[in-house]
């Protein structure tokens, strides 16, 4: 059996789809944010990822690590809300973890996701259960590692990770926010789905759907 690897063009294709998915969900994410935050999550992310699309040709000839680092830098410079430094750090740390690579295997994917998530935790000083993007990302990473250690292939493992991220998003409805603007609402944020966890899930789901269609 061939081991599935992600090439540079897979990574840039996934980025293209993420840009499109964020654009399609711009209003949805903003509406979620309007309920408990400052009503800009979808607008800000869309602004950032559109800037990524505009600037992507400038770093498309580089390795995967450099591409991801540049994506992070563009997000930091253009998003404007908390998701800028957070997703910016996420992509920059992912890029550092796969520096110089032109193809990614399972270990690379786990390592970059791990580096990205720890970057977000450091930057936002948040942890699982604070009603943030971490509530989707951490269960996804844990599930990815678990599935791979049980010998499941990358398609199955990333699919399972996306399901875990979705359950994490659903969980955010039942908890109070401890970080971000929503924390000003405290207990009154219960009942609302977290926009950051939702955008994180959308990105993970995009990767899962893309990988699922690849030839094994």
């Amino acid at each position, binding site marked *: 059996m061939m081991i599935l690897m992600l090439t540079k063009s897979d990574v840039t294709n996934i980025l293209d789809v993420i840009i499109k998915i964020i654009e399609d969900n711009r209003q949805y994410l903003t509406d979620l944010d309007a309920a408990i935050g400052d009503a*800009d999550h979808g607008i800000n992310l869309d602004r950032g990822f559109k800037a990524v699309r505009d600037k992507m040709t400038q770093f498309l000839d580089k390795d995967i690590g450099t591409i991801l680092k540049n994506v992070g830098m563009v997000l930091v410079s253009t998003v*404007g809300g*908390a998701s800028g430094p957070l997703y*910016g750090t996420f992509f920059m740390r992912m890029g550092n973890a796969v520096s110089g690579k032109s193809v990614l295997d399972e270990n690379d994917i786990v390592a970059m996701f791990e580096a990205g998530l720890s970057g977000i935790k450091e*930057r936002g000083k948040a942890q699982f259960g604070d009603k943030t993007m971490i509530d989707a990302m951490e269960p996804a990473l844990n599930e990815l590692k678990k599935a791979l250690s049980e010998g499941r292939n990358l398609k199955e493992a990333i699919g399972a990770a996306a399901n875990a991220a979705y359950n994490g998003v659903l969980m955010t409805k039942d908890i109070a926010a401890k970080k*971000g603007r929503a924390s000003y609402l405290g207990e009154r944020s219960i009942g609302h789905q977290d926009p950051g966890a939702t955008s994180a899930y959308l990105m993970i789901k995009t990767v899962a759907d893309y990988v699922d269609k690849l030839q094994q």
Partner: protein
Amino acid sequence: MVGIVIVSHSKKVADGLYELADQMTGGKIRIGKSGGTKDGRLGTNVDEIVEEIKKCESGDGVLVLVDLGSSVMSAQMALEFLDGEYAGKVEIADAPLVEGTIAASVEASIGSDILKVKEVAEAAKNLVKI
């Protein structure tokens, strides 16, 4: 003299606070400001924060004052983006933006060092008004 950089989500807040602090210090110190995003939305602008810190550094360091959420993270990223020559010279105050900026600006204008200016800004948390 220690420089001061004001970071807010709102350009109007940054401009207004700059006006207040400048009036109190009469042009004796460098005060920078970054409010809103590049394209005029509410939000923060890491690149501009980096530029303002550079403009306000005259050798004695710069204290950055921030408002909400992403201001803190954007200011931290700005510090990371700054070259080594700024290492240890730029601090972010854990202080209320308006009161902290005024207190820090006045302290800087009498020639205090960066740690004293930061301490005074952070003490503004305990200011009793009534």
